[in-house]
């Protein structure tokens, strides 16, 4: 069924991104907005827009029942959740189904499995894909943890089964620290996710974060859309992503692609998703988790493939066949994305909301800026600090990098402090230029920074 009207259950950059593609497909677009977002760009661009509640997300963008009710009332046929908010909420996806609405994304079962990190890990291992050495056993007490960890080699990582985003995750250096770290991690997991269940994995030394984009249609056909390197992270938050991933052997790259397709087929995955892996210094890879949503960094894949992933999601949701054959999917050139956040790198990434007095978006050949910014926009205090994603494409990686540097220099979002100076530092680092960087790059750079370069960042 072709949809004539779709409700976009999100805000800001990603709502704008989705509305644009839907419009190009001739779909009437509906935005929702909180009281703090009346003047947000997604509201202006949508064909129609409805208020959904007060500023805090819990009272607006997370009101699953109210959003489904609205979508049904205005006779939308489908809901696109974007990322964050309700995107990975199995209950919301099920509510949509019950109301006769299509949830443009994975099935409720997919979302439940992806959300249970421990069970996902077990299913993936049973499918023959390597996982980080550890235990599938749910750990609910210090005694259980001590029993399981006796046969493992330290350092270890305790993780929340319901976790994600680095919350409820604790490193354990040696057996003497296990009891303390267990209690802390379980308390955090209970507080953040409402479930104290933990599991344990070995800590991989200086890994790279490599992920593979997949698409799966309702006939169970799965294709991979190659990989991305997302190893520039601070406190488990990605800051720079690129595709294809530099510095991997062709054999490893193909193994990762195959593993991602195997996982998607094994779990009966539907629509767009990402399989995240860690790659260690010996070029061994390990499954980490399934991200059951369109991801922030999807544009780098779009840029190297010339493929609109939101339109692909729409086609899959409408039950159209994936008009894509694996052998036809070829990368052209290289793409890099820098997340422009309202955070001050000179002040330990302190958030900096406020009014945009002066604005200039970089432009030119091979440049894409996915953003909801405009001159005079008041960045609210209530939501994620991401203002936009600066993406550059180049025929080669050096060209994409040079273009990124040029664009970062061109960007003006005054007087808001942004992550732009941090990105400029990263892309000038030799290990980044050589394409051989690991998850510790950002923290290393921030530690090494003397007061001189901090002042340079403030300038």
């Amino acid at each position, binding site marked *: 069924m072709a949809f004539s009207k779709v409700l976009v259950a999100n805000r800001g950059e990603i709502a704008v991104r989705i509305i644009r593609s839907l419009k190009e497909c001739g779909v009437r677009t509906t935005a929702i907005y909180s009281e703090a977002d009346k003047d947000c760009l997604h509201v202006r661009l949508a064909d129609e827009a409805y208020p959904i509640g007060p500023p805090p997300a819990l009272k607006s963008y997370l009101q699953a029942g109210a959003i489904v009710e609205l979508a049904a009332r205005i006779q939308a046929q489908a809901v696109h959740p974007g990322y964050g908010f309700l995107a990975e909420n199995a209950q919301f996806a099920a509510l949509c189904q019950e109301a006769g609405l299509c949830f443009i994304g994975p099935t409720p079962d997919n979302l439940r499995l992806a959300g249970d990190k421990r069970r996902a890990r077990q299913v993936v291992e049973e499918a023959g894909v390597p996982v980080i050495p550890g235990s599938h056993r749910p750990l609910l007490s210090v005694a259980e943890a001590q029993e399981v960890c006796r046969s493992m080699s330290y350092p270890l990582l305790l993780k929340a089964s319901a976790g994600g985003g680095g919350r409820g995750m604790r490193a354990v250096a040696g057996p003497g620290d296990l009891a303390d770290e267990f209690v802390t991690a379980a308390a955090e997991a209970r507080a953040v996710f409402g479930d104290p269940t933990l599991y344990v994995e070995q800590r991989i030394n200086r890994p790279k974060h490599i992920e593979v984009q997949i698409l799966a249609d309702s006939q169970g056909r799965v294709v991979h859309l190659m990989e991305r390197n997302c190893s520039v992270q601070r406190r488990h938050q990605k800051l720079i992503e690129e595709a294809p991933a530099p510095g991997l052997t062709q054999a490893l790259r193909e193994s990762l692609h195959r593993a991602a397709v195997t996982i998607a087929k094994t779990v009966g995955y539907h629509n767009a998703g990402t399989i995240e892996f860690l790659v260690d210094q010996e070029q061994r890879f390990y499954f980490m988790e399934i991200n059951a949503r369109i991801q922030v960094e999807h544009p780098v894949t779009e840029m190297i493939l010339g493929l609109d992933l939101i339109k692909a999601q729409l086609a899959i949701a409408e039950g159209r066949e994936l008009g894509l054959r694996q052998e036809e999917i070829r990368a052209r050139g290289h793409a890099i994305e820098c997340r422009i956040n*309202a*955070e001050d790198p000179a002040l330990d990434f*302190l*958030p*900096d*909301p*406020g009014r945009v007095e002066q604005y200039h978006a970089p432009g030119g050949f091979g440049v894409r800026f996915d953003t909801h910014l405009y001159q005079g926009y008041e960045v609210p*205090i*209530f*939501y*994620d*600090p991401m203002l936009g994603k600066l993406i550059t494409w180049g025929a080669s990686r050096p060209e994409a990098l040079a273009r990124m540097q040029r664009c970062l220099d061109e960007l003006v979002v005054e007087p808001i402090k942004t992550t732009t100076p941090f990105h400029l530092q990263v892309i000038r680092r030799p290990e980044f230029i050589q394409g051989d960087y690991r998850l510790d790059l950002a923290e290393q750079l921030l530690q090494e920074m003397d007061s001189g370069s901090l002042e340079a960042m403030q300038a």
Partner: protein
Amino acid sequence: MSQNSLIEMKSPLSGVFYRSPGPEQPPFVEVGNAVKRGQTLCLLETMKVFTRIKSPVDGEVVEILCANEATVEKNQILFHLKR
């Protein structure tokens, strides 16, 4: 107490002002409490990040100028303290 001995504790950023660490928990400080330098006075939530606002001095809380869960602006006075 002379007016000029009051210390104006200003908000370093805009955000939502919280007097206690959690919904069911007692406030960090009340008027009349003695506070140590570095002691947490309140939390500010800005763009999903929580920042602890700490006392710059050993002293006493004279006045709390914001209601719990109020939206505060950068440089708005949150507390009056005295040494």
